[in-house]
C-alpha cells in the first residue's frame, strides 16, 4: 500500500501551475544532459577502448528516454499556492517536495532567465530566506506572471516582516 504525500490536502490548496511551455525547458535540459553524458561514454568506448563503456551508454540512453517521457508530468508537478501568511511550493514526482515559507522570512527575491527561458519568454523566481537549505524556486513562470508575483510577494513580506 503506497500513499502519496500531499502536505496541503487539509487546505484544499488551489495549486497554480507553471506555464505549459516549461516542458520545453525540461526536455532541452534532459537532452543536453543526456548528449553530454553519451558523448563522454562514446569517447571512452571508441578512443580509450574501454569496452564496458557501451553499457554506460545504454544506461544513459534509457535514463534520458525515461526523463523525456516524464518531462510533461515533471513540469505539471510544479505548483505554488499563496496562502494568507505563507507561500506553498510543491515539486517533483519521484522525489516529492513540499515547502512552506512564511512571507515574513523572505530576505530577497531573484528573477533568473536562462537562454531557453528567454526564447520562450519564461522566468524563474527564487525566494531566498536566511536558511541556505530553503532552496525555494518557481521555474517556468511567464515573464509578466513572474514580475507580478515578485511585486506581490515583496508587498506581502513588507507587511509581515519578522526580522532576524
Amino acid at each position: 500500500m503506497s500513499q502519496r504525500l500531499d502536505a496541503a490536502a487539509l487546505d484544499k490548496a488551489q495549486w497554480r501551475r507553471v506555464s505549459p511551455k516549461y516542458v520545453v525547458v525540461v526536455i532541452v535540459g534532459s537532452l543536453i544532459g543526456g548528449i553530454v553524458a553519451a558523448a563522454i561514454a562514446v569517447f571512452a568506448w571508441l578512443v580509450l577502448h574501454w569496452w564496458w563503456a557501451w553499457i554506460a551508454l545504454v544506461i544513459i540512453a534509457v535514463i534520458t528516454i525515461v526523463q523525456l517521457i516524464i518531462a510533461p508530468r515533471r513540469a505539471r508537478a510544479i505548483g505554488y499556492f499563496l496562502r494568507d501568511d505563507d507561500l506553498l511550493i510543491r515539486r517533483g514526482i519521484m522525489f516529492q517536495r513540499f515547502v512552506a515559507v512564511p512571507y515574513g522570512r523572505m530576505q530577497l527575491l531573484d528573477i533568473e532567465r536562462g537562454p531557453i527561458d528567454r526564447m520562450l519568454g519564461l522566468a524563474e523566481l527564487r525566494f531566498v530566506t536566511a536558511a541556505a537549505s530553503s532552496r525555494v524556486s518557481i521555474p517556468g513562470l511567464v515573464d509578466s506572471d513572474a514580475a507580478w508575483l515578485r511585486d506581490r510577494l515583496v508587498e506581502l513580506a513588507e507587511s509581515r516582516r519578522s526580522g532576524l
Partner: protein
Amino acid sequence: MTRTVSQTYTEATGLADGEWHRMHKATPLLRGGIAIVFVAGIIIANLRERIINLFLGTPDYPSGDPIDAIVRHNFVWPAIGIAVVVIAACVGVFALSWRVQTFRVTHQAVELRSGILRRQERKARLDRIQGINVQRPVFARIFGAAKLEIVVAGHDANLYLSYLPSKVTETLRREILRLASGVRASDQAEVGQAAVPGGAPAQRQSSTLGILSDRVDEFVSPADLDPDAAPPATIVRMHPGRLAGSLLLSVPTLVMFAVLIAMIAGASTGRLWLIIVIFPMVLSLGGLFIRRFSKALRYNIAGSDQGVRIGFGLLTTSSETIPPRRIHAVELVQPLAWRPFGWWQMRMNTAGHTRGKNSAGEARTTTLPVGSIRDVQRVLPLLLPGMNDTLRDAIAHAGMDAHADQSVFSSAPRRGAWLRPFSWRKTGYTIADGVIVLRHGAVWRRIVFVPLARMQSVEVEQGPARRILDLSSADVHLIDGPVHAKVPVMDTRAAEELFTLVSAGAIAWADAETPHRPDERGES
C-alpha cells in the same frame, strides 16, 4: 571633518555616550603583533648561524648570511639607514592608524571609523546585534587589553573594537546591550556609577606597582569580571575528569589510535618513513586535544538580564553575551561512546556564527562541551527562555533518559525500521509552547529544539523508497550552523500533520513576538 575625540576611559559610561573614542594605546602593537613576530622570525632564521657562532664560537663558520653580503659590498651605512627609515615608517603608520581609529556608541548604532588611505566606516545597528563577544588573547591580556566583537548577521559583517582596556569592556558591553534592549537613557547614569568597582581606577594606575597588580589580577581572576553575575545556581562548572573522558571518547581519539597502530606496525616492519609521514598528524591531533581541553576547562555559562553569557578559554579567554531571541536552535547530541556515562553536548545556531568562519566558530556554537543530564537541564532554560519550565523539563527528560515515559514524542511506525533499523523507535517530534522538538539518530543521538518563531521554512519530502513504505521525511529549515532539524522517517499522514502545524505555528509565534518591537517593522 571636525570632531572631538574623547579619551576618558575611567568613567564607566564614558564609552557609550555618543562621543568618538580612541582605542587602547597598545592597539598598534597588538594588531601588528603577529607581523612583528613574523619579521623577527625571518631575521632570526636568516642569521641563525651568526647567532650560534656568537654563543658557541663554531670554528668553521660559513660566511653566507645577509650581513656578510652587506659587509662585503660595503653597504653598511645605507643598510642601517634603510633599517632606520623602515622602522620609523612602521612606527609612524602604527601611530597614525591608532589616531584615526575611533568608535562611538549612539542610541541607534555602534560606529567604527578606521583606515589611513582607505577610510572605512562600519556601523552596526543596535537592533540588529546578535551578540557581543569579549575576547582576550594572551598577548593582549599582558597589556590589560581586550577585543570587543559586535556580532551581527551576515558574512564577515562583525564589528571589532580592538583593543580596549579590559576594565571598560564589560561595562561597555552592558551599556550597548542595555541601549539595544531599549532601556531609557535616564536609567543609565546610576547604573554606570554602580558599575565602577572602587571608584578610583585612575589613581591606581599611576603607580607602577598598581599596574603590575592589575595585570596579575587579570590572570588570576576568572574569565568573567562581571559585577552583576547571575545567581550561582544557574552556572555549570566544567568537571576536568569528565572533560578529559569526553575528549578520550571522541572521534579524533579513534583517529589517533588508528594512527598509532599504523606507526607501531610501520616501525616493527622497518618502514620508518611511515613515522615521518604520520608524526605531524600525531602532533596536530595532540594540539587539537590540548586546545579543546584548555578551551573548555574554564567554560562557564550564566543567565543575565541581557541574555545568556557563555565564557571559554584558559589563556585566551572569550565571553559572549547573546540577547534573548537570537538563538535559532539548540541541539543536544550524544555520541555512542558517551551513552554509558550519560553525557551530552549542547550546540546552537545563531545568525552571528555561520559555519566555516574559522575554527573559533566551532567553540562558539558549542554551548556546553560536555555535561550530565542535570547540567543540560540547567542550561536549557537559559537558551530557551520563552518555554514553559515544566514542559521543557519533561520533554528534555524523555529525550535524554531512555527509561522515562516516551509518549511525549511521536514515533516512526515499525516499517521505519527498513530505513532506520536502530533508531526508528526514537525518531519523532513534539510541539510544545511554541517550540518544536525533533529527535533522531542511532550512533549520534540528537534532540533539537527549534522555537517556531525562529525557523525559516518547513519541508516534507518523499522519495521512491519512502513511498513504497508509506513514509516521508520532514526538515525544518534553519539559519546556517551546526544544528539541522530533521525527522528522517515518519508516517506520511504524520508528516502532513507536522507540515500543517509547523507552517501555521511559524506564523503565529512570529506574530506573537513582533508587538514587543513595533519600531522594527518596516525599517529593517
